[in-house]
């Protein structure tokens, strides 16, 4: 299983490195959105709930660009068939795709979060980053699990570009709520507490539930 996941992940990252179809688009979208917010709100800085909302909605929509592209090369170039013909555990593809999406999200956030700090955020990032990192990791796991599941379903339909976001966004609303609530206390000028524990627990529970659902149903999504 580990060898198969490794092979799929290596292929996934190689294809992305060669095509640059996902990560640059996701990053550019996020940075552009922050610039638009900067001018549209007519504010130099935001903090608290407002900052958390802007950050997480932007990251969510940027993530959707990656989710939509996740299985496109496999569907268009026969990679699905080649994988289905191999004597391997099909869950390996779920794991490899989810890890790849996690990697894309990590790169996106390496670019988008500093840009957010520079363009909009009132408190310095250095003050919020260690605690915000925990929220980012938990939210990314949820986005990766749900995104992979939905992408596998949507890619087999003709309206995959429309169906992916339509299915994913309602499922990801709890992730955005949890992540925004957990990070809101971190994004104020004089924050003295860490992220709210109950929202972190909610995110972790949601990750676990959707991780298990994805594990249980992924095989059936690949079946004829």
């Amino acid at each position: 299983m580990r060898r198969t996941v490794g092979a799929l992940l290596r292929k996934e990252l190689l294809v992305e490195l060669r095509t640059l179809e996902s990560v640059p688009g996701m990053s550019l979208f996020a940075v552009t959105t922050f610039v638009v917010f900067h001018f549209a709100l007519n504010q130099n800085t935001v903090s608290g709930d407002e900052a958390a909302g802007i950050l997480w909605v932007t990251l969510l929509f940027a993530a959707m660009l990656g989710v939509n592209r996740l299985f496109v090369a496999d569907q268009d170039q026969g990679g699905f068939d080649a994988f289905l013909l191999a004597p391997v555990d099909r869950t390996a593809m779920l794991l490899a795709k989810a890890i790849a999406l996690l990697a894309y999200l990590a790169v996106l956030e390496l670019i988008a979060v500093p840009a957010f700090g520079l363009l909009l955020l009132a408190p310095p990032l250095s003050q919020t980053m260690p605690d915000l990192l925990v929220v980012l990791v938990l939210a990314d796991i949820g986005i990766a699990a749900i995104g992979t599941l939905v992408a596998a379903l949507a890619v087999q339909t003709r309206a995959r570009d429309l169906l992916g976001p339509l299915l994913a966004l309602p499922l990801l609303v709890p992730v955005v709520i949890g992540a925004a609530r957990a990070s809101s206390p971190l994004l104020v000028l004089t924050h003295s507490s860490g992220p709210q524990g109950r929202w972190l627990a909610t995110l972790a529970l949601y990750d676990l539930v959707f991780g298990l659902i994805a594990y249980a149903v992924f095989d059936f999504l690949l079946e004829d």
Partner: protein
Amino acid sequence: MIELEGLVRRYGEREALSDVSLSLQAGQTLVVFGPNGAGKTTLLRVLATLLRPHDGEVTVLDRRLPDEAWAVRGRVGLLGHESLLYRELTARENLRFHARLHDLDLQRVDELLAAVALTDRADEPLKSLSRGMVQRAAVARATLHDPELLLLDEPFSNLDPAAVELVAPLIGAESKRTRVISSHDPSGGLAQADLVLGLRDGRVALLRAATDVGPEEIVELYR
């Protein structure tokens, strides 16, 4: 090796394969003829376990489908219209990816690249190779894991005569593998066949030993 009894496969309401029955022994070659849309590719995809039969009994490599499809995967080599290779990756990267999926020694990749005369172009992205070269890489991919059963959908399209000769030890009669080939070439197809299946609108229009079939009967299928 392959036993079909009343195989039915539908796409929505339309029956792509209807009541197809045949038997193929190990080491034999079945060549399937028929006009476009007759069900040739569907038949190959059912045998490859990529499509589920909707009715009838299907046994491939002595395993019943779809229940025992897991035991058939990895023992079948499929060469279809698509190369099943990633255009952005090189031939070597693609074959190494497949070798890892089939748990093979990576040495096998170099052997296959040499066998299809792609060693010199093995490190170029597939999108920069000609269609014939991509087809040769696809032959290497389909035979990398030394499959017992080859499912070949018009395998010699895009190949020049020299390339056909080159891949013959891998997918030709010399390979000594059981083969199911779809073809539009009456004389070339008959030369490969032990058993001939003619399909028209998903139904069996012809099923006979190759020695009892003439090219004119194949041509008739297309009228």
